[in-house]
């Protein structure tokens, strides 16, 4: 099944990229094709969970790979659907967008499934290059080019550091396979290996936008189309978070505890500084970039506990974040397509110009803030529970205090939407496609918040293998 998913996504992306120029007039055809592929891989992902073994010593089969396939295919499916929000598609071609998203998803799946550092690196680059292209897609505007340049530059630095770290780990363990590395590090890591692991973590920190390696994120989000920024905020993060969990449990062996400690430190710094910087933002995309940094911080706190509760927290967090974040970025996309810029100022009075959209925005924003009965609350609750279980009281207290700051900057968005007077009070129409898509996501946020058991049980069964 996993093999089928890999082939489907690779070929699907290839076909889409090749035929894209012929379908400029009818982007819907390619969107349907992309959606079908993602739908198929999503279903296959559930079956892939039943497999076991390792393909060619490089790709692990099993429940965790299944989770990655499902989550990433879901993100891909939603983004493929989201591409329809902009009537007439993107000026540079919509088919290429689908192809890049597909390869990005493929890279993400391989990243999690990898059992070998080389595959890990290649998968990471595949996913990264796809997102470089997507971020730069708005090249007509100055910000678009700037965003892509910054993102790629810092992404390359991150890759280089990662590669160097891998080399050091190789020097110590003379292997790139996870199992052999774990065996090599079993007796406790040497200084050389620790240096290698630290560099690897820094490289991955760049990709996950943990503070202090986050500088590219606000610019990349601001310059990209909201749809692409949305994809950037969920797919690579999902892949990297799961991949880090895999590395911690399968590759780092005796050094896992040390690395988990570092992850916890980076995550806590991200939560604190990200929340503070978010208070200063006036551009919604930049605000969401800092919000992503904070969420990746919370997620990292769950990861750092290296416990079942922590891993389930990470899985559920990712699922909740995919639907919530994409929902909000879709609203941004729909409004940008209508010429409304993504600034807090432009969003003033949105709740009166279109009350239903106002309510949908409120659902997503409140979920990001972590208000109960919505998915975002349970995600944070699980992270906090994992911290309590690990008796990391200091981290728990700092994290809950930062939730208050989070409320403040998320409520600023709601204040603009509902309380502040609009310059232009004219009603704002939403296309039926965009509206139904966003409504669906808002419903998912509510349902996941009220009735999370199926998702939690599935994640718990799949992630138990990490322990």
């Amino acid at each position, binding site marked *: 099944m996993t093999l089928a998913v890999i082939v489907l996504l690779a070929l699907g992306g290839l076909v889409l990229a090749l035929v894209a120029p012929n379908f400029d007039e009818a982007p819907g055809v390619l969107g349907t094709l992309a959606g079908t592929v993602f739908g198929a891989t999503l279903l296959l992902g559930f079956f892939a969970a039943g497999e076991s073994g390792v393909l060619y010593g490089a790709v692990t089969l099993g429940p965790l790979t299944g989770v990655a396939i499902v989550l990433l295919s879901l993100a891909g499916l939603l983004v493929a659907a989201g591409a329809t929000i902009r009537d007439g598609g993107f000026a540079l071609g919509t088919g290429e967008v689908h192809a890049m998203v597909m390869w990005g998803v493929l890279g993400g799946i391989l990243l999690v499934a990898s059992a070998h550092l080389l595959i890990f690196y290649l998968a990471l680059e595949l996913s990264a290059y796809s997102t470089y292209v997507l971020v730069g897609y708005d090249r007509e505007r100055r910000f678009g080019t700037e965003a892509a340049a910054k993102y790629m530059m810092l992404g390359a630095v991150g890759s280089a550091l990662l590669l160097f770290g891998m080399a050091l780990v190789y020097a110590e363990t003379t292997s790139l396979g996870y199992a052999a590395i774990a065996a090599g590090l079993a007796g406790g890591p040497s200084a050389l290996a620790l240096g290698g692991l630290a560099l690897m973590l820094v490289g991955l920190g760049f990709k996950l936008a943990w503070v202090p390696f986050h500088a590219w994120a606000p610019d990349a989000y601001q310059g990209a189309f909201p749809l692409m920024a949305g994809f950037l905020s969920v797919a690579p993060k999902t892949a990297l978070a799961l991949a880090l969990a895999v590395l911690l449990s399968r590759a780092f062996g005796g050094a896992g505890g040390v690395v988990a400690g570092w992850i916890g430190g980076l995550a806590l710094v991200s939560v604190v500084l990200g929340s503070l910087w978010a208070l200063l933002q006036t551009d919604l995309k930049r605000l969401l970039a800092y919000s992503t940094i904070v969420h990746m911080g919370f997620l990292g706190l769950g990861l750092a506990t290296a416990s079942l509760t922590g891993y389930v927290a990470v899985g559920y967090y990712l699922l909740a974040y995919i639907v919530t974040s994409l929902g909000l970025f879709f609203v941004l996309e729909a409004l940008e397509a209508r010429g409304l810029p993504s600034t807090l100022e432009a969003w003033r009075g949105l709740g009166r110009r279109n009350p239903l959209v106002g309510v949908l925005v409120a659902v997503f924003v409140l979920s990001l803030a972590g208000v109960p*009965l919505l998915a975002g609350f349970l995600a944070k609750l699980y992270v906090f529970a994992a911290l309590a279980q690990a008796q990391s009281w200091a981290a728990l207290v700092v994290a809950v205090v930062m939730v208050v700051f989070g409320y403040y900057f998320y409520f600023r968005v709601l204040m603009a939407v509902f309380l502040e007077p609009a310059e232009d009070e004219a009603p704002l129409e939403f296309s039926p496609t965009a509206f139904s898509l966003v409504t669906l996501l808002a419903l998912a946020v509510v349902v996941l918040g009220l009735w999370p058991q199926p998702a939690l049980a599935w994640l718990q069964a799949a992630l138990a293998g990490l322990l």
Partner: protein
Amino acid sequence: MTLILIFLPILAAALVGLLDDPRAEAAKRGALMIALVTLLASLGAYLAYPLASGGFVGEFKLEWLPLVGSSFHVGLDGLSLPFVTLTPLLTAVSVLASWRKTEKGFFALMLLLQGALVGVFAALDLIVFFLFFEAVLVPMYFKIALWGYEQRRYAAVKFLIYSLVGSVFMLAAMLATAYLAAPALGRVSFDYLDLVSVAGYLALLPAAGWLFWGFALAFLIKLPAVPLHTWLPHAHTQAPTAGSIFLAGLLLKMGGYGLIRFNLALFPGELERFANLLAVVALVSIVYGAYVTLAQRDLKRLIANSSVNHMGYVLLGIASMTAVGLHGAVYQMVAHGVITGLMFLMVGLLADRTHTREIAAMKGVYNAAPKLGAVLWLALLGGLGLPGLAGFLGEFQSLWGGFLAEVTRNYVWFAVFGIVILAGAMLWTIQRVLLGKAEAALDDLNAVELAAAAPLVFLAVLLGLVPAALTPWIDAGVQPLVTLLQEVLK
């Protein structure tokens, strides 16, 4: 049963929000109907409660977050039933008080608030309690921020931030409590009954003091106790009438209820340890609250500040840790919900007519609008604790309970100052606002407004003259806690 009381209003809120109803006629009628139906249902539950055997009725338990050890567990007992019944009643009153509003969102938020508040009082799982405790914030925030008076946004944000600061520490304390209690229970559980059963083990934890304050901070902010009360005058003054009724009548009660339900039941040893401090806080709230009330020029703010005084008695009763004191605390909370709800209702209606809340600008209201004046008169007298009205019994029992306990005895003497000062403030208000010759004509209460006031007037008198309508329920709720207290403290 309990589920209906919680979720019927929440579902109805969603429906009301979706109605295509520009003038909100259907929305307000629907909201009133839901409030009345749930009121009847909760009244039924109240009357059918087995007073002799006590315990929880209408219990419902559903596995919810098994990995974390939290289940959706709700139930009602003598401690929660009075509040669960008061909630739909005040919703109905608020809907009637807002009969002129033309936004359906206002009524949807009201129903949302009703459901969440019942959830708070019915929750028997810490996480579920937190869930509803937080869920109350969002509709209240929007109610103040969208429909409040001139400084509404400042007041709304202040309310939100204060409440949140308390509740995040409470969440941390809840998680810590559950995980630290796990060795004694053999598993992680957020179930209230499970945790109460190991209160003796919790008392021995070195971190028990921290856990106690994690909970207490949230509840003292909500109550509110001086010096954590500064959000209250703004929120209560700036909120629309219906919002003030909810705030004073129910949101403050979440604080007192939480102190009894969690701080007292889970950490009786810590409560005893800090009883002296809490008694001082209570005393300061009583005296300072009354003193500040005296200085107000804004009629709504005056009533808001008197709540600080009234809630001080609640804290004093709890700090006494005696059966009488606890009983008085609960009685006082219910009485305050009724009387202060009535005060805010009348002042809101008065301010709608005079277009000002300045006391100096009002005169001879009784003369100009006898019905409105009479009800406001009654409410203000209830506020000063006149015997024969509900407030007296609550205050008296709290003070008596305080007198019975060693730790609070000396403070009760000083609390008497609070009574005198507040009585002065209320009487002076009556003199300034109600008496004298009217300068301008005022519309008197219409039928809808009278209907809104009638149940509260009835309850204020009933609970003042017939304590048996409430006392047995409180006994059933408080007595097991007192027994538990004695066991653990031994």
